[in-house]
């Protein structure tokens, strides 16, 4: 049922995306490019928070690593653009692997705070490593090329950006249907139960962090295809929170939710870019409102496939249950 709706929605999206370059102006194409980057970022965070349940707050750092790596390689050697994107993805993945090692030692708030600290430290690196990132003056990215074909405008970059986003969407869905996806969700529900079932929890957590960082790195590479400038200011905690909001308001644990959230919040943040104070106020109230009235987000994730949590038994009910099952339990003991 919902599978059918998904298919219709996907087809509809494909049609719109294909028709768009023939009907829309440059700015609209730029915004759609940006939305595709947000979709990939949200999918990456979905893997680590939604699927694996690890509360990581350093996504913008990996995104930044992807942007600077891809941008630098592109500026220096002008290789075909996929080389620089893959390099950015790999470096981000390597860093993600290291941060995944942190995740093995801590959980919940400790993990959130240490990844937060890592993200802030990385932003500091972007700001202060003058010789590489050009620091607070911002970094210029020359147009990406593919065998001599230069992606000089948003419209020229557009098909490649959309195709990469579609590939990663396909990869995410395939991943969540694979055994690895089941292992991710087992770890999310309970480390210890997953371990008891024979899941290598440490390896799974590390994999989730690595993959998530790789997605963010690739998203950074996608950004270098159409954008010509990046400032470290936009690679801080704010951006991590923006992506987290997409995932959570969309619906934790749901790919549909991550995409819907990315599109909605990407649009809001772009449309309200000029009016910072209004953006912040609207943002704040959306966040509070959603958490108050729909904490599970727009699309609650896979609730149907999960067993309902054990209800706290009422005293009377539990006593009745205890008497009812007394004899077999006693005999078993």
């Amino acid at each position, binding site marked *: 049922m919902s599978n059918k709706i998904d298919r219709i929605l996907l087809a509809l999206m494909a049609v719109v995306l294909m028709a768009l370059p023939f009907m829309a102006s440059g700015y609209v194409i730029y915004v759609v490019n940006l939305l595709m980057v947000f979709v990939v970022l949200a999918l990456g965070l979905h893997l680590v928070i939604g699927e694996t349940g690890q509360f990581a707050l350093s996504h913008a750092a990996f995104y930044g690593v992807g942007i600077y790596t891809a941008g630098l390689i592109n500026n220096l050697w002008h290789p075909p653009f996929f080389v620089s994107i893959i390099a950015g993805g790999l470096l981000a993945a390597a860093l993600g692997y290291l941060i995944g090692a942190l995740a093995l*030692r801590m959980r919940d708030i400790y993990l959130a705070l240490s990844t937060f600290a890592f993200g802030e*430290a990385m932003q500091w690196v972007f700001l202060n490593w003058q010789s590489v990132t050009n620091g607070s003056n911002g970094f210029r990215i020359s147009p990406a090329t593919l065998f001599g074909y230069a992606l000089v405008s948003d419209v020229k970059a557009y098909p490649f950006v959309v195709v990469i986003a579609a590939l990663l969407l396909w990869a995410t869905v395939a991943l969540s249907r694979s055994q690895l996806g089941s292992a991710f969700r087992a770890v999310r529900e309970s480390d210890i139960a997953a371990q008891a079932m024979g899941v290598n929890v440490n390896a799974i957590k590390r994999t989730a962090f690595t993959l998530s960082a790789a997605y963010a790195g690739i998203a950074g590479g996608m950004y270098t295809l159409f954008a010509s400038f990046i400032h470290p200011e936009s690679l801080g905690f704010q951006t991590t*929170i923006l992506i987290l909001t997409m995932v*959570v308001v969309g619906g934790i644990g749901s790919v549909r939710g991550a995409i819907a959230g990315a599109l909605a919040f990407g649009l809001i943040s772009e449309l309200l870019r000029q009016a910072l104070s209004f953006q912040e*106020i609207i*943002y704040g109230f959306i966040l*509070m409102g959603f*958490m108050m009235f729909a904490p599970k987000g727009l699309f609650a994730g896979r609730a149907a496939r999960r067993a309902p949590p054990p209800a706290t038994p009422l005293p009377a009910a539990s006593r009745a249950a205890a008497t009812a099952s007394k004899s077999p339990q006693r005999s078993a003991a």
Partner: protein
Amino acid sequence: MSFADTWLFLQQGVLSGLVTGSVYALLAVAVVIIFKTTDVPNFAQGEIFMVGGYIALFLILVMGWPYLAVIPVTLVGVAVLSGLFQRVVMERVIASKGVGVQMVIATLGLAYALKGLVRTSGLGDTPRSLPPLASTDAVIIGDAVLTRLDLLIFAVAVTVMLLLFGMFTYTRVGRAMRAVGMNPKAARLTGVNLTRIRMMVWALSGLISAVAALLITPKILITPDIGHIAILAYAAAIVGGITSLPGAVVGGFVIGIAENLVGLFISTNAIVVAPFVAIMVVLLLRPQGLLGGKLQVKKV
């Protein structure tokens, strides 16, 4: 650097560190009491503190009130705001079955809303600071130079902390708050009204943040983005073990002194990144913090 210089820097660093550290300690205590009783890391801590500073600025610069009236109004205003947030928003999140992630995001929502509201007020357009509460005449201790204002900051912060410890140890409401922190279900069974206690804890935390804001705003320039300072409070809370009140105080002083020493001996540029490095190192080597007791393992 000669030995005499080093000795001078050490004295100055430690004493200035104790002053700024006392403000971080207050903010860390504000973070910890909320975390202990409601399990929520309050990501709006910095913004609540910032609003305290701006309420005081508004009353003094726009309304022209004297300090005597500004101080109580600011304290009460921030406490009410903070308590109301718990009562209206957070209780509603709990009622709709929100868990950790959702509660954190609700506090982030508050942070954004407060920042935006202060920005629209126009007061935040230029960095401002409050007129000094005490004279800024120099006071020389050993070879180090502090101001009277610094001494006042330190004295008030320490007094507030002592009052808090008194409250948590000897008063009914303080003990009820600790009981909720230890075991909410058991506390409710003994007749503690959880909703009310949680609201009072948030209000208390707001009050402490307002004290911190009133103390430090005459010394520094504030902008709507000053909430970043809460990162130092978090670092302090983590260094001390995020559930320990004495730990938060010790952590605050450690962070304050470390920050000043890094600034004097290494570079002012490194100050910004020092707290993050501190957070990561502490979490890696001693995740439960200095005074956090034994590490607990959750069982299924």
